[in-house]
């Protein structure tokens, strides 16, 4: 039963124009089994929130707290965070030439579990998870993300989530750029994880479309490095009709 607590989180990044604050005091708690949609306009800092939680070295946390099950995440390295149960499905997954998907998955699983998975069940698990996501078995022998289409990359991210079984999963714009079929497949993957495990999900999205397939328990509107408003699924509907303009006007004044 995981719980991720974010309190007054501030983060900066170095730019050629100097240090820029991107997160300006984020408060959010995600518990096991809950799905939180983080919605907001481009440039509001939602992706930065995801990367800051995962520990990307480009962001400095200048203030605030971040804990997972009471443990201080800010003191953990990137890989320690993952081993503690955090998972980030990336918006732009990176190519790793010469490293096959099957080798990558096994290496990651071994690192997360602290021991190599039992070969027979592992091969079966990978195969069935790939089948669920309608991924061709030859995928396992391709190099990580090399020559993958946008939809293939996102399926591969969800495949990892399914196999690594995290306590808290952050999905960073997993829905962006997908056609409806791919979106449906990816959403099914997320729903399967919700049904079969106790994962808490932070679903970062720019569009409301994915919320037709994955129902959030909470919706948070993210504007200018902060959560501007929160509510239930009905808030997503309101955003669908009104867009983000209301918040942007407010942010500027």
């Amino acid at each position: 039963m995981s719980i991720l607590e974010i309190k007054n989180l501030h983060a900066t990044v170095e730019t050629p124009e100097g240090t820029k604050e991107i997160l300006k005091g984020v408060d959010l708690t995600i518990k096991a089994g809950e799905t939180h949609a983080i919605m907001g306009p481009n440039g509001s800092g939602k992706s930065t929130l995801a990367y800051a939680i995962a520990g990307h070295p480009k962001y400095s946390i200048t203030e605030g707290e971040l804990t997972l099950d009471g443990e201080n995440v800010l003191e953990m390295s990137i890989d320690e965070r993952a081993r503690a149960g955090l998972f980030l499905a990336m918006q732009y997954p990176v190519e790793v030439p010469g490293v096959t998907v099957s080798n990558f998955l096994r290496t990651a699983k071994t690192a997360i579990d602290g021991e190599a998975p039992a070969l027979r069940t592992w091969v079966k698990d990978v195969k069935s998870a790939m089948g669920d996501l309608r991924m061709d078995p030859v995928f396992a022998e391709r190099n990580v993300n090399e020559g993958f289409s946008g939809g293939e990359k996102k399926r591969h991210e969800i495949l990892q989530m399914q196999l690594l079984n995290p306590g808290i999963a952050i999905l960073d714009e997993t829905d962006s750029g997908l056609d409806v079929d791919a979106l449906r497949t990816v959403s099914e993957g997320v729903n399967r994880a919700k049904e079969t495990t106790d994962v808490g999900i932070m679903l970062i999205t720019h569009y409301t479309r994915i919320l037709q397939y994955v129902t959030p328990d909470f919706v948070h509107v993210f504007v200018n490095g902060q959560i501007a408003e929160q509510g239930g699924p009905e808030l997503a509907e309101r955003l669908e009709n009104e867009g983000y303009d209301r918040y942007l006007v407010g942010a500027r004044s």
Partner: protein
Amino acid sequence: MTTADLKGAETVGDPAANENVGHAAGAAPVAAQAALDGADTTAAPELEDEALVLPGEASPARAALNRGARKRSFELGDHPRPKSDIEEWRFTPLRRFAPLFEDVATDDREGDSALEYDVTVPTGAPEPATLAPGEAPRGTALVPEDLPTAIASARTEQALHLVAPKNAELTEPFRVEITGRGADRRGNAHIVLETKESSTATFVLNHTGSAQYAQNVEMLVGDNSRMTVITLQEWDDDALHIATHHARVGRDAKIKHIVVSLGGSAVRVNAIGEFAAPGGEIEDLGLYFSDEDQFLEHRLFVDHAAPNCTSDVAYKGALQGKKARSVWVGDVLIRKEAEGTNTYELNRNLLLTEGARADSVPNLEIETGEIEGAGHAAATGRFDDEQLFYLRARGIPENEARRLVVRGFFAELIQRIDVPEIRERLSASIEAELSRSMN
């Protein structure tokens, strides 16, 4: 069809515009990515250069290139002492290699030779023989083009001669274990490898221990034969080694030439491949790993002097540690008569740490328009932080993630080495190189 596929040409005159190894897209949000890019390009310690000469072009690069017109002679007096203003020596640390520019005999002592040669011949091949200077086929392909090569030739009274007989299909490799007996001891060598008509053979030269070693390897690839040569530089840290390899490829013959440089203080391998008749094929593969203070230079020259020949060059190197240096210069000449040529060369370097430097220079000189294809690519990239982040975000510890990336970087090349035992040893050697700096 004529195509000139000039990948990498966009980097001309802009040494900062290097692609990242692996073409990895940045995974960070845009604001941060911009910051990262800025930091990356200004600190980039790499240098790239390239030259392309097309027919009828009066380019100043031509005089520097003109690779086919270099003087060939057995006379020491015909070769100037290497200087940094001579094109082929401009990247080389001459003071370090200076002992190999001296005309000195092999430092063999009573019952104690400077280098030991342990030769294993496969079933079906004759016992090793020797060739005196001027005794054919010695000197029919390799005629020295520089001073250390001329010295090694003149100072080798009996060249080792290994032959695969006509039509022989030798499955086991010839093995030559070369062990240096001291970093202060000079060795000169000339080795002649030969595959007679329609034969198939593999030759493995393995260098360990330490020495100051000037070595020539002459390869006669008979008509319709298949020769594989693997030279492994697994020297101790204080060895000096200059090697000149020269292959003459017969009609419909193929050579696969593999250079692996991991050890030594300073190593320079110059691999020349020349097509003597139509239908030949040269596959040049190279893999190197340069550590702190180590200098590794690989030059190659593919001389398309006959029509309908194919050459495929791929060299990859990783560098780590202060003053780890590598140089790669790939010259390809497509002569007027070499119609129907197909050639591609690639060099990639991966800088694992700050303070390392890789130079990469592909030169392509084309004297005929009637070719199938000619292309080259060279890129030097720093270890990709986004790759590292991606792997670590999956729980994989940093050192293991680095290993995974470096292994992946070399994987495609290692898969092309057909001797399983060498593949395994190479993987293990790379692991060892990596663990040196990652504990």
